[in-house]
């Protein structure tokens, strides 16, 4: 059952590509169907899991030699997250079809949304940490494509790249962190990590592992100091923002923290870093949100704040705070996706998202208004809504803790109320102020069904928490060791959390009166300090890259050769001096007369080549050197090499004969000093190579590999010519690489010469 959930989503990413952007009713149905199928599949599997109380595990071998398995598991948390992802995903795809309305790119958007849904579902379902990482990276990549969906816009491209850079860096850190975790615990399986008892807190690798895993989680969930990418990601089309940047992707970091908390949690490092990052994120996000006038930016700020609260709660690290985080997470996903979708509808209908212009939309948008209103009430935490329950549990988990934590959450929740009113109430009920770019009208069923459904759901499960109680309770017992099943209920009697809630309402309504959005028409500063820092760091990296490229890649052949020669000379000399000692010069006197004559001839030919004033002479002289080398090969019984060398020399001279007529007159292009330096470099290089040769002569290795290959050649390679057997059998992969290089080089020559030729014409 489990793999089908993923397979359906993968099919879903292919189906839209096969359809036209302007599809009829059937086509749209086909696009929505896979997500629905996946959701239903998950529901069935979930029913099984909930009734048996055991998590489902599905495992297939992938690379057994690395211990890599494609492992999936469905526990309570995975079920909760998975239902949100596929359920909201179905509604978002429906909404996206309406939002794009058959414009070009509709199906591309749907396909990418499915790809993302696949990756995200993969994260929550994966059991093997490496598989989890692969899906994690896939969400980064698909979110890059989604944020940059309007790729004609520079701002969208920039935001997409920023999100990719930040989350990509976090992903790398996460990979290292997961490997360290494996080193400490000896297991890759999440199901083992969640149930087993691993004492990692005192381990020397613990701190490193913690930092790396937190880097991964914080970048993904946009926690301070990586919060800046999330508001910028609002450059994406609204369905994307609603899905990725509120309900799902940014929750991946929180999900990671939740599943890592049984292993890595329980220490003061864990609590402090989470609480500080979460607390700072809450404050930054809310201050930022109060300054914004764009509906989507306001919602992005509240998403940041909610992520901060969730991180903060996980950092408190008590059983109750984890439970509160789960309740809060569910509530947030429901109301925030709704608010984003209604914001998109408003944008579509009026042509603006500026809350300073919007008003009186209730008359023209009778379906969107109730959805937004219900979601805003849930976000404010009014009684009977699920948001209220979430807030109650948040307060419950901090009661008895330090006053600072209570204060942070109190002010945070009160400010969220202000932002909820601005995003979900003011645009619909306030007296209209400015002229809107477009005459408002209600959206079609595709764009209103989803928000209405989610908003109503928030109210229904708020009134009857028993409906989701078993799900939350199962998720809670699955990730908290020794937790008892818990029954959610609406009324807990008059206690401190209720009083705190009332205080929040009072504070929230006061703030609504006091704080007014900036005056209409005024420019709102939408960037944050951290964003500016990112910009500078980014520019600096590019500058260093440009500088290093320009100083190394001069485009002059001479400097490339100098760099290569000097560095290889230097490395060889360093090795010789540092480790090897100089070679002995024994046996130099005993030269074979044949070889001696060859060497003298080759030296004379070399001098000819260097001193000649004609290209042809130089080439022919070099040819003589080459033939000399091949004779030496032949003498020392390497006939294959000798033949190859002769053929290559011949072909080179022939090729050159074709080119030589085309070349300009022979001229001196370098100064005397340059030539002097080149001579010196050439002599040094020659000397170093000679020393290296002598050194390798004097070295004693173990049994020679060539002996073994020679022995194996006939019995195992079926060939008496060991050189050829090595080339085509023993080391065939190397040869294959070489012929590939040959082909690429030939294409390079062709392209280069062809370009020069056409330019000449």
């Amino acid at each position: 059952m489990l793999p089908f959930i993923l397979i359906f989503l993968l099919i879903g990413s292919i189906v839209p590509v096969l359809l036209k952007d302007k599809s009829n009713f059937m086509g749209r149905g086909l696009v929505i169907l896979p997500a629905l199928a996946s959701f239903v599949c998950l529901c069935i599997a979930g029913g099984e899991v909930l009734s048996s109380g055991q998590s489902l595990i599905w495992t297939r071998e992938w690379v057994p030699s690395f211990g890599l398995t494609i492992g999936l598991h469905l526990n309570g948390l995975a079920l909760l997250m998975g239902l949100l992802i596929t359920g909201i995903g179905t509604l978002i795809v429906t909404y996206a079809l309406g939002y794009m309305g058959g414009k070009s790119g509709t199906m591309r958007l749907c396909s990418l949304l499915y790809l993302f849904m696949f990756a995200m579902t993969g994260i929550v379902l994966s059991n093997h940490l490496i598989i989890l990482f692969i899906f994690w990276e896939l969400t980064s990549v698909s979110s890059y494509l989604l944020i940059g969906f309007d790729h004609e816009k520079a701002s969208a491209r920039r935001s997409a790249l920023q999100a990719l850079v930040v989350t990509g860096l976090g992903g790398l850190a996460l990979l290292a962190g997961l490997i360290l975790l494996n080193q400490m615990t000896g297991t890759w399986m999440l199901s083992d990590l969640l149930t087993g008892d691993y004492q990692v807190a005192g381990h020397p690798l613990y701190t490193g592992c913690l930092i790396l895993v937190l880097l991964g989680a914080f970048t993904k969930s946009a926690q301070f100091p990586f919060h800046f990418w999330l508001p910028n990601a609002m450059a994406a089309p609204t369905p994307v923002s609603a899905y990725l940047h509120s309900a799902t992707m940014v929750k991946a970091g929180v999900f990671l923290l939740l599943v890592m908390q049984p292993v890595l949690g329980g220490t003061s490092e864990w609590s402090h870093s989470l609480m500080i990052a979460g607390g700072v994120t809450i404050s930054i996000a809310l201050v930022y949100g109060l300054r914004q006038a764009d509906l989507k930016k306001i919602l992005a700020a509240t998403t940041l704040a909610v992520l901060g609260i969730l991180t903060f709660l996980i950092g408190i690290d008590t059983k109750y705070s984890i439970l509160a985080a789960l309740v809060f997470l569910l509530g947030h996903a429901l109301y925030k996706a709704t608010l984003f979708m209604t914001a998109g509808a408003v944008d579509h209908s009026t042509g603006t998202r500026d809350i300073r212009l919007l008003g009186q939309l209730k008359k023209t948008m009778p379906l969107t208004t109730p959805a937004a209103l219900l979601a805003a009430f849930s976000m404010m935490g009014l009684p009977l809504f699920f948001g209220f329950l979430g807030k109650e549990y948040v307060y419950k988990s901090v009661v008895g803790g330090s006053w600072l934590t209570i204060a942070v959450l109190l002010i945070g929740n009160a400010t969220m109320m202000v932002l909820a009113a601005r995003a979900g109430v003011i645009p619909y009920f306030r007296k209209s102020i400015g002229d809107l770019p477009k005459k408002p009208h209600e959206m079609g069923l595709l764009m209103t069904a989803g928000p209405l459904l989610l908003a109503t759901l928030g109210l229904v499960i708020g009134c009857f928490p028993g409906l989701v109680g078993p799900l939350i309770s199962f998720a809670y017992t699955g990730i908290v060791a020794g937790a008892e099943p818990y029954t959610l209920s609406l009324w807990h009697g008059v206690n401190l959390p209720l009083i705190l809630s009332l205080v929040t309402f009072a504070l929230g309504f006061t703030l609504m009166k006091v704080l007014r959005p900036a005056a209409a028409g005024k420019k709102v500063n939408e960037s944050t300090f951290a964003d500016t820092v990112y910009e500078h760091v980014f520019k600096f990296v590019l500058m260093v890259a440009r500088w290093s490229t320009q100083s190394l890649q001069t485009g002059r052949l001479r400097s490339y050769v100098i760099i290569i020669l000097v560095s290889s000379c230097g490395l060889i000399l360093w090795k010789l001096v540092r480790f090897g000692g100089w070679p002995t010069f024994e046996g130099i006197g005993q030269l074979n007369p044949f070889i001696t004559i060859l060497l003298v001839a080759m030296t004379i030919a070399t001098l000819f080549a260097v001193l000649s004033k004609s290209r042809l002479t130089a080439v022919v002289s070099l040819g003589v050197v080459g033939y000399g080398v091949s004779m030496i090969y032949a003498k020392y019984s390497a006939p294959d090499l000798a033949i190859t060398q002769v053929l290559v020399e011949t072909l080179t001279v022939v090729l050159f004969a074709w080119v030589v007529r085309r070349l300009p007159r022979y001229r001196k292009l370098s100064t005397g000093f340059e030539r002097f330096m080149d001579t010196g470099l050439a002599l040094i290089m020659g000397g170093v190579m000679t020393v290296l040769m002598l050194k390798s002569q004097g070295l004693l290795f173990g049994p020679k590999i060539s002996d073994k290959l020679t022995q194996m050649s006939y019995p195992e390679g079926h060939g008496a010519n060991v050189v050829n057997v090595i080339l085509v059998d023993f080391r065939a992969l190397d040869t294959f690489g070489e012929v590939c290089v040959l082909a690429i080089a030939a294409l390079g020559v062709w392209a280069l010469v062809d370009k020069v030729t056409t330019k000449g014409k």
Partner: protein
Amino acid sequence: MDSVILRTATRFLYPLLILLSLVVLYRGHNLPGGGFIGGLIAASAVMLRALAVGWDEIKASRILKPIALMQYGLIIACVSSLIGLAVNNVLFQAVWLPTWYLPVIGKLKLGTPIVFDIGVYMVVLGFALLCAKSLDSNNN
């Protein structure tokens, strides 16, 4: 360059050289030779012909298309490696057919290394031809 002697000689030398390159290719497994050397000999033969009668005739040839030669050479080499994967589950592992005895040639041993060598032969020939042809096209 227009020389009657060269043209006439080439008419006989060219097929001989190509045949030689094929023989060298085949015998490479036991005696000096192989795809690399064979490819170079074939390239020399083609260049000899180009010198004698010009490139036009070679450009007209349906076999001597450099890029196609490299393409199919790489594909052949690749396929020969996959045979090992299919038969023994190890990439590039040699697979040999039973030895045949033919008149004239004698023992005939065929296996994936020889197929691989044919691929190498074609890539080397294609490489040399493409370089030569590009450099020569400067002349026109």
